[in-house]
């Protein structure tokens, strides 16, 4: 299942999408006011590379479909595609 991470296109959060786009296994498109970060495999975004300060980093995820957050700490935001039912897997994240 394709993972879709939505990041709002404002100055604070844009670096997440820019950093994610450097991953060759990740595709980033613009969808309305959001960046849609698409991936078929687990991927992660390094906080240091984004330059986001604490509060911005921890408020940078707008939405996640088809996957779930497995790590969101001071170092990385990591997302894995959900196997099977999105509902069940997301609920157990």
């Amino acid at each position, binding site marked *: 299942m394709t993972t*879709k991470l*939505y990041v*709002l*296109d*404002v*100055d*604070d959060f844009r670096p997440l*999408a*820019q950093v994610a*786009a450097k991953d060759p296994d990740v595709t*980033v*498109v*613009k*969808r*309305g*006011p*959001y*960046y*849609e970060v698409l991936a078929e495999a687990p991927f992660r975004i390094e906080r240091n590379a984004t330059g986001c*300060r*604490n*509060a*911005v980093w921890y*408020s940078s*995820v*707008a*939405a*996640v*479909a*088809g996957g*779930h*957050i497995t790590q969101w700490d001071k170092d990385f935001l990591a997302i894995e595609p959900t196997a099977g039912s*999105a*509902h069940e897997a*997301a*609920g157990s*994240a």
Partner: protein
Amino acid sequence: MTLTHTVCGVDHAAFATFDPKATISFYRDVLGFPVVHATCALGWGPESHPDFIHFFFDIGHGDRLAFFYYFGVKPYVDNEIPELLRRARHLAIHVDTAEDLAEYRRRLDESDWTCELQVRHETVESIYVTDPNGYLIEFARPLRAITVEDDIDANFSADALMAVVDEDQPSLARFFQIKADLIAARYAGEAAEGAFV
């Protein structure tokens, strides 16, 4: 139908005080909030507290912070209130600049009610202090402008929140999923543009 939106800010927010002396010292003499109105009510209140003073401080833009002092009423302290609620219920007063925020911090730090925390949130930088009544007061200055994109996102969040709390086990993971579905549905008819390519 879009509802018209004609309200214009806070007329006043009111709280009870059992220590009007410290309250006036804190807001007027430490922070410099002018006292702009006081209602002195004799026998106006209900039987349990007929006499009271309702006094108001100007907090800018004509908005006011008000307190009730009830004569003859024993101070009430709720020691059972969870810390979560004590922190959640707070009044945030807006200042425009970093200089203004620093000035209010200076006034607090030179008083008996020193600043407890200064933090840069996502869109505001804030200082916090507990007033003489135990109420948490925040001063906040903007770190960036709120954009139309923020407003759109906030409305998706509101709709996703309303939906997720109807589920058996609301979670942030499910919230993100529901919100993603709402976003995808809203923009399904629009061609996605490549980004950073």
